C-alpha cells in the first residue's frame, strides 16, 4: 500500500491494552498512528507515547466524538490520503484495515463504514438489538440506512476527512457522520469487519449500554429541535 494512511484511536482509560493494540497495528503495515487520550485517569497517554504513537491529550474528558474529531484534525495536518478511525480497546482487528481502505483506494467511496452486523453471528444478541435501534433512529433522523451506524471502525478519504464537520462530542458522533455523508453527498461503502468481544471490551462502563444509548438518542433528537 503506497497510500499515506493515518490511524486515529480515541482512548479513555485504556492503558492496559493500548500498547497491545498499537503493536498489533504495526504488524499489519507502516501506518502513522495518532492516539487521542480523552482525559484518562490512567497513563494511557504515556503508554501510547512510549509505543511510538503520536499521542494527544484532552485535559478533561469530552467524549468519544470530541476525541475522534481532535484526532482527525491532527491527522489532516499530516496530509494523509486516508484517515482511519478505530477503537482503543482492541475490539477491532487490524487485519481488516486493508479491506476497509480498499474502496477508497479504488475510488468508489469517500467514506467506508466497517460493519459488525455483516458478521452478525459474532455479535452478542443484545448488541444486535441495540444496533438495530441505533440504525433505525439514524435512518429516521438523518435519512440513510446503514447496517452499523455505531461502528467506530471507519475510513475517510482525504476529502471526506476535511469536509466532515460535526459538533457532536459523545457517542452520537458516529450517527452524525452518517448525516454528514448525506449532507455533503459523499460516496460511502460498507464492508464487513470482525469484532473481538473480549471480557475487557464488554466490561467497560462507558461503552454504549442501554442508558448511554437512550442518552445518545435524546441528544440526536435534541439537536434536531435546537
Amino acid at each position, binding site marked *: 500500500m503506497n497510500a499515506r494512511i493515518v490511524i486515529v484511536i480515541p482512548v479513555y482509560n485504556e492503558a492496559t491494552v493500548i500498547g497491545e493494540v498499537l503493536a498489533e497495528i504495526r504488524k499489519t503495515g507502516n501506518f502513522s498512528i495518532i492516539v487521542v487520550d480523552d482525559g484518562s485517569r490512567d497513563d494511557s497517554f504515556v503508554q501510547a507515547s512510549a509505543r511510538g504513537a503520536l499521542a494527544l491529550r484532552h485535559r478533561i474528558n469530552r467524549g468519544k466524538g470530541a476525541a475522534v474529531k*481532535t484526532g482527525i484534525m491532527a491527522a489532516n495536518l499530516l496530509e494523509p490520503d486516508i484517515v482511519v478511525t478505530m477503537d482503543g480497546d482492541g475490539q477491532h482487528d487490524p487485519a481488516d484495515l486493508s479491506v476497509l481502505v480498499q474502496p477508497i483506494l479504488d475510488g468508489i467511496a469517500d467514506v467506508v463504514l466497517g460493519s459488525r452486523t455483516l458478521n452478525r453471528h459474532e455479535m452478542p444478541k443484545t448488541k444486535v438489538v441495540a444496533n438495530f435501534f441505533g440504525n433505525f433512529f439514524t435512518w429516521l433522523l438523518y435519512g440513510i440506512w446503514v447496517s452499523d451506524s455505531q461502528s467506530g471502525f471507519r475510513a475517510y478519504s482525504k476529502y471526506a476527512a476535511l469536509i466532515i464537520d460535526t459538533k457532536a*462530542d459523545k457517542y452520537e458522533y458516529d450517527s452524525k457522520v452518517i448525516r454528514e455523508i448525506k449532507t455533503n453527498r459523499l460516496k460511502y461503502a460498507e464492508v464487513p469487519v470482525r469484532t473481538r468481544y473480549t471480557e475487557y471490551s464488554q466490561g467497560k462502563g462507558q461503552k454504549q449500554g442501554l442508558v448511554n444509548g437512550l442518552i445518545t438518542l435524546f441528544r440526536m433528537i435534541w439537536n434536531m429541535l435546537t
Partner: protein
Amino acid sequence: MIEKIHLYQVVVVAISSVMLFQGIKEFVKRESGQTILKLLVRLIVWGGMAVIAIYPNISYKFSKIVGIEDNITAVIVTGFVFVFLIIFKLLSAIEKLEQNVSELTRRDSLREAHERIEQLRQDIVSEDRSRQDRS
C-alpha cells in the same frame, strides 16, 4: 376569524415568528447542521404553537379529543409553555457551552502537540521521498 386579540396570542406568535425566522434563515444560509428534517421539526413545533395562538378554536377540538375542558387547563398550559421555553433556552445554552469547552480542549491539545505533529509530518515526507527514490 379572529374576533379579539389577547396578549398571549401576540407573545406566542412573536416568539414563534423569531424561532421560525431563525430556522428558515439558518437553512437558507446552509449553516452547519441545518437539514430539511430539522427545519420541518421547527415548522411543526413553532408553527403549531403560532397556529393554536391565532386560531384557539383548534385547541377546543383537541381538548375534546383529549378530554380536558377545564378552565384551569389554560393556567397549567401557560405555565407549562413558560417552563418549556426556559428549559429550552437553558439546555441550548448548556449545549453551546459544552461545545465551546470541547473546542477549547481540542485547540489546547493540538497546540501542545504542534511540534510533534510537525516533526511527524516531516518524517512522513522524507520517508515518502526516499521510497520514491528507491523505486
